[in-house]
């Protein structure tokens, strides 16, 4: 009986294997993280936003370097200081065959910030829109209460859904595939949580048609398993190649590597506000009533004590770029004046002495151990370096689920964190990390060191209300320089992200860390 079943099974399997060979244009992708839903507006987090891009286009798209490019909108402009006008692409069809119009955009603006039970909504990008006016089928205007220069950037953060399909649709309808009606390059086939997401090509796509007729995305969260799956041929491509394996993979002639610097800066956040900081002790480990970290000279000493090049070479195995500010070169509003702090342990000791801490003090550095590339190792390396200039440093690393809640409760004195600027410009880290914590204005929500500088606040707030692009950029640069020169945070390095594909494929590596099937091409 069992034997018979097994035979049937075998026959079935064999036929499946042969059927499988017919799909030569299938691309299998192994990803580190899996989305929590297929609903493009349910959970504002990179894996969700990224997978939504397969099916749902945005008004404005970001190219691989996060420059804005036309998406469902072909052009946009300020009609006046308080009004943005978007001209929409004509002839675009939804996957179900109906026409894309401005009504769909208006519907999306209404729905996206208000998904029930959303653990993190898109409201942040939409709340400045005080009114939507559908001028004609292909023109839409958005009103704001204040001048809002970031409008196009924010409009590039969420997918447009169909009014027809989306009316009354719940998150569950997106998960089941019922409401997965987009205009994007791929149509949704199925989602088996934890196992796979399957797409097929949208043959009527308005843009460049992707090379792949079928896409299978598999979540492979363990680093080594992900690499092993690529080497074993289970998948054609993986993201977040662990730094330890890059050298070997480069030598492997079955594999190609694609790399680019990311918009993610890894930095130290410092308790600059309190007189008594929880993890600052005297040199013998006894609690202290003074917080040396409030002294700019001490912070400067810490920055000088860090051998960024050493960390990049040895801990990151060359796959990172030493950082001197919030975003790497090539992004918008980069300060030409800020340089990477050179490694200078003697200068650091001298500064400590000058500040009255020549005998050193005790400190604990906290960091996550499963969030950023090699996070726990970087924390240890920094502790080594600080110990060498006389700051006796202990290390405490923990999983991100413990780390972030504790960090937000201000339980730490010195911590390693990372920040990816999803918008591709510095207002995002400036507003969240360095602006004074201000609940009413919505600034400083991730300012876990509670750095505060009135000049920076003013420059940033002015920038956010300046529509003129040049002036807007200059103000951002000014704010960045104030923040970095006062060491509100100590930047360490920018992550370089690595994708590996089987030989013969090439990926247009993205600074926003996303893996999009449209960017995968056969190399000639």
């Amino acid at each position, binding site marked *: 009986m069992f034997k018979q079943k097994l035979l049937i099974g075998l026959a079935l399997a064999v036929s499946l294997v042969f059927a499988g060979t017919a799909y030569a244009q299938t691309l299998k992708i192994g990803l580190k993280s899996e989305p929590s839903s297929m609903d493009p507006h349910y959970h504002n987090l990179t894996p969700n936003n990224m997978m939504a891009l397969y099916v749902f286009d945005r008004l404005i798209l970001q190219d691989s370097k996060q420059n804005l490019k036309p998406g469902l909108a072909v052009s946009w402009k300020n009609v006046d200081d308080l009004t943005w006008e978007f001209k929409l692409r004509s002839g675009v069809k939804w996957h179900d065959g109906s026409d894309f119009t401005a009504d769909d955009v208006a519907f999306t603006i209404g729905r996206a910030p208000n998904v029930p039970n959303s653990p993190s909504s898109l409201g942040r990008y939409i709340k400045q829109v005080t009114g939507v006016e559908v001028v004609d089928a292909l023109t839409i205007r958005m009103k704001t209460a204040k001048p809002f220069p970031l409008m196009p950037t924010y409009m590039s953060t969420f997918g447009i859904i169909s009014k027809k399909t989306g009316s009354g649709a719940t998150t569950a309808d997106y998960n089941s595939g019922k409401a997965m009606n987009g205009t994007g390059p791929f149509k949704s086939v199925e989602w088996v949580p934890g196992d796979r997401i399957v797409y097929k090509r949208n043959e009527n796509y308005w843009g460049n048609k992707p090379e792949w007729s079928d896409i299978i995305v598999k979540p492979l969260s363990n680093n080594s398993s992900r690499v092993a799956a690529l080497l074993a041929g289970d998948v054609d491509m993986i993201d977040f190649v662990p730094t330890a394996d890059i050298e070997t993979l480069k030598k492997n002639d079955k594999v190609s590597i694609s790399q680019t610097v990311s918009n993610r800066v890894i930095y130290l956040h410092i308790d600059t506000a309190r007189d008594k900081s929880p993890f600052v002790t005297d040199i013998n480990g006894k609690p202290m009533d003074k917080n040396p970290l409030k002294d700019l000279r001490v912070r400067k000493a810490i920055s000088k004590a860090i051998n960024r090049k050493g960390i990049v070479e*040895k801990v990151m195995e060359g796959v990172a770029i030493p950082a001197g500010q919030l975003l790497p070169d090539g992004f918008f509003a980069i300060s030409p004046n800020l340089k990477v702090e050179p490694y200078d342990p003697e200068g650091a000791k001298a500064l400590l002495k000058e500040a009255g801490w020549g005998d050193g003090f005790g400190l604990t550095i906290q960091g996550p151990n499963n969030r950023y590339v090699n996070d726990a190792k970087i*924390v240890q*390396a920094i*502790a*080594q370096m600080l110990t060498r200039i006389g700051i006796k440093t202990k290390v405490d690393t*923990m999983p991100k689920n413990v780390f972030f809640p504790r960090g937000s409760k201000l339980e730490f004195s010195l911590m390693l964190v990372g920040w990816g600027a999803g918008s591709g410009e510095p207002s995002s880290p400036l507003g969240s990390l360095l602006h004074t914590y201000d609940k009413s204005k919505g600034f400083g929500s991730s300012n876990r060191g509670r750095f505060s500088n009135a000049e920076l606040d003013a420059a940033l707030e002015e920038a956010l209300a300046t529509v003129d692009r040049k002036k807007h950029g200059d103000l951002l640069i000014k704010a960045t320089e104030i923040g970095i020169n006062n060491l509100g945070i100590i930047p360490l390095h920018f992550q370089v992200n690595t994708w590996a594909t089987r030989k013969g494929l090439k990926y247009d590596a993205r600074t926003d860390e996303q893996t999009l099937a449209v960017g995968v091409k056969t190399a000639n």
Partner: protein
Amino acid sequence: MTVGVEIIKEETLLRRFISDFAQSKIAVAGLCTIVVIILIAIFAPLLSSQNPYDLGQLDIMDGRLPPGEVGGAGFTFWLGSDDQGRDMLSGIFYGLRTSLGVGAMSAFIALFIGSSFGLLAAYFGGRVDSIIMRIVDIQLSFPAVLVALVLLAILGKGVDKIIIALVAVQWAYYARTVRGTALVERSKEYMEAARCLALNHKRIVFRHLLPNCMPPLIVVVTVQVAHAISLEATLSFLGIGLPVTEPSLGLLIANGFEYMLSGKYWISFFPGIALLVTIVSINLVGDQLRDVMNPRLQK
């Protein structure tokens, strides 16, 4: 029976025990290895060229050196170094210390607590039994990894904390095993005889019931010491447990794990071998002990 007679009797028993144990050469070899390992663990600071737990002595510029290379501090990394520039040989010496300590401490505390409850339950039966076994059920129904995960998330990191977590997941196991065996023993003739003689509870439990429960218990203890060390490694692998700056063998393996595919085998391989040798020796000795101590296998 006088006191003197008892002492003589115990001495001969011990001698017989030793000669029985020595019958297996491989077990003796295992015992010798354990002794050596314990000595290494105790004298680790004297044997190591570096204190791998002192961050001030490490230099990342010495990171990932292959075995035999000389680092910046001037001494040779005989087994190479890990990503932090930690000498693997020193790391293994110190790691042995931590792993053995954690494994043995947690297993014995758990053994003590668990078997006490198990015996109580089996011997008294009735309400005592059902209450204790309900608690055991609750405990066992939490999967070990999960209890440890949640416990450690709340407690934080440290050797003491991981011992608490390991005891918490292991004691019920002993309780259940002891109770199972003791239930069988309880219905045997010698127990009924003991009860008929109206011996007191303490005497029956400790002189009659417990010794007869020993053989399966020893099997479980050997398995559990090994299991404790391995569980500790797994917890380290999942990112909780011991602080990264004071690695046990398990943590050393976990740290080197990501370098396996890239050919930097020494970071994970040598601690793996040390762990393997340790556990195999413990188990060899445990096996032989069980055979020797089992009254039913005596010829």
